[in-house]
């Protein structure tokens, strides 16, 4: 069809298509950060019964940017660990905008260890712009805290499911994301740096954030295509905030399916299987041959309908 158009229009059409893709991706970024998007505690409320919140790293601090607790989920006790953002100004400050300090990751590790001892599957909820970039956080070992949290997750004997529910921002997000299955909500984003950070560094202009987002494609669908995410969980039309109860039910169903399938795997192989899962991640050329590109069987259950 394109070939019949005179040459100048072909360029125009391409530019229009690019612009459309750009605004689609930016829409995902804005939905993922939407003010009324449900946060970890909103899901915990609706997903589990007998919820008990657990506090503190047992070393002097309770980081409010990370919440954790145990509850009963469809017949089993699970532990939930997630980032928590705040809704109004006061709560945002209290939650530090969902940006954890090293003590927050220590809190996560403590709850992982508890869950492992007592046999509770671990469900994590990822929703953070990133780990907190502060002087004290750095002096307290922010980098090592993230690395150790990931390492702690790789060696759990219990099944683990990570859910990217909003903003999956960088190492601070992945710190609680090294799990047997990774779920991602349809309108969540997952990226190595915020679009603003990427625009500032590569374009040297924060106003190019839309372009940056379009270039690095932080969407659920694309993360699935690259094999980073196992299942894209559908959201109510217009986004999870339009119908939080339904969003929680849909997420709960996906978590249930994931836990069932992990529990079917031999427990003594769990750590090796988890390692193998992340071992496969990446796309590169080896002696000129492309390696690692996922040939998706396009499991219809793994992606919501267009």
């Amino acid at each position, binding site marked *: 069809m394109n070939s019949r158009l005179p040459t100048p229009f072909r360029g125009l059409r391409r530019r229009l298509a690019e612009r459309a893709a750009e605004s689609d991706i930016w829409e995902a970024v804005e939905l993922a950060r939407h003010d009324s998007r449900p946060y970890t505690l909103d899901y915990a409320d609706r997903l589990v019964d007998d919820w008990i919140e657990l506090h503190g790293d047992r070393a002097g601090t309770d980081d409010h940017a990370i919440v954790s607790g145990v509850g009963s989920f469809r017949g089993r006790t699970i532990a939930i660990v997630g980032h928590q953002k705040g809704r109004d100004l006061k709560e945002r400050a209290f939650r530090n905008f969902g940006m954890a300090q090293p003590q927050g990751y220590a809190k996560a590790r403590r709850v992982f260890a508890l869950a492992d001892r007592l046999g509770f599957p671990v469900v994590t909820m990822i929703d953070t712009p990133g780990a907190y970039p502060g002087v004290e956080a750095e002096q307290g070992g922010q980098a090592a805290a993230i690395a150790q949290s990931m390492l702690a997750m790789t060696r759990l004997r219990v099944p683990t499911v990570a859910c990217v529910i909003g903003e999956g921002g960088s190492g601070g997000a992945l710190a609680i994301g090294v799990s047997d299955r990774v779920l991602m909500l349809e309108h969540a984003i997952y990226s190595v740096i915020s679009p603003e950070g990427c625009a500032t560094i590569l374009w040297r202009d924060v106003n190019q954030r839309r372009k940056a987002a379009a270039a690095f494609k932080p969407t659920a669908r694309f993360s699935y295509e690259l094999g980073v995410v196992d299942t894209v969980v559908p959201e109510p039309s217009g986004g999870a905030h339009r119908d939080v109860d339904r969003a929680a039910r849909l997420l709960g169903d996906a978590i249930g399916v994931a836990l069932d399938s992990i529990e079917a795997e031999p427990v003594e192989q769990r750590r090796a299987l988890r390692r193998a899962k*992340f071992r496969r991640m990446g796309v590169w050329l080896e002696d000129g041959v492309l390696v690692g590109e996922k040939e998706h069987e396009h499991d219809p259950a793994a992606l919501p309908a267009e």
Partner: protein
Amino acid sequence: VARDEETEDIQVEVEREETPREQPPARAKLHPNTCPVCKSHYREDELRAVLRVCTVCGHHFPVGAEERVEQLADAGSFRPLAEGLRSADPLAFTDLRPYTERLSEAEVATGLGDALIAGTATIAGMPCVLCTMDFTFMGGSMGSVVGEIFTRASDVAAERGIPLVSVTSSGGARMQENILALMQMAKTVCAVDLLQESGVPYISVLAHPTTGGVIASFAALGDFVVSEPGALLSFAGPRVVQETTRETLPADFGRAESSFEHGLIDAVVKRDDLKAKLGQILRLCAGGTLVPMEPNGEAAVPPPGIVARVLRFLRSSQHGDPHTNGGPA
């Protein structure tokens, strides 16, 4: 010896008073072989011969991946691994320039396939797997290739039971591979998990700068973590921290010396002493037993470490009284 150290210390103080480090060096205009602190200039061969450490003020210049291997590995002992790996462009990423263009440019500039090289080697006679990073290859950033090379190196170490040594210098994860670059953090951590499960030692050397996704993954997880003087070792860069917190950053923000004070690393080691220090750690890891080496650089009695420890344990439990074991003879 003690007197030498004293005089050395005094000299360092004098140098610092003459050239305050706070003064921001006009880095962009300086020749790469001119010391940014004291402006001493070196010919390339001179600088190489002194391990790229300024003989006047002790400033540590950056070292490329291959030169780092030359500095640390015993001559002729390095056998490269995973050489055929190159970055693909899975996102078809273009910022101001296409990713593929930046890659080709870096390949030409450095002569390397990507920002990390790996191989088996001996350091001070001790066998190990050695990985070194090159900051000049796209800021030493970690994409799929860096993650894969580290993982393969680590797997070789785990399989053969020989320690892993990494020397990092990186801005963090490679933005052009976005989520796949982020996943390399998880991948390399999984590789370290296998090393730890296999009881194989891992020594992480942090060179300037080791930041972002590299310090927050494998580089932070060494059984021994040492750094070169003055290296920036923060997760978030100073500018990001300043812009987010609006605080005035301490002058030594994120530097090796500050990290040492806060208990984040085991030692700050000058480059002149690095090889000896690595040799010392490797010998300790092998249980104090020097493993005789064949001329080809392969361990004659593989593998050290675990075997040596198990043998010693067996010997001590056969012949020794467990209650007096470890006590005075």
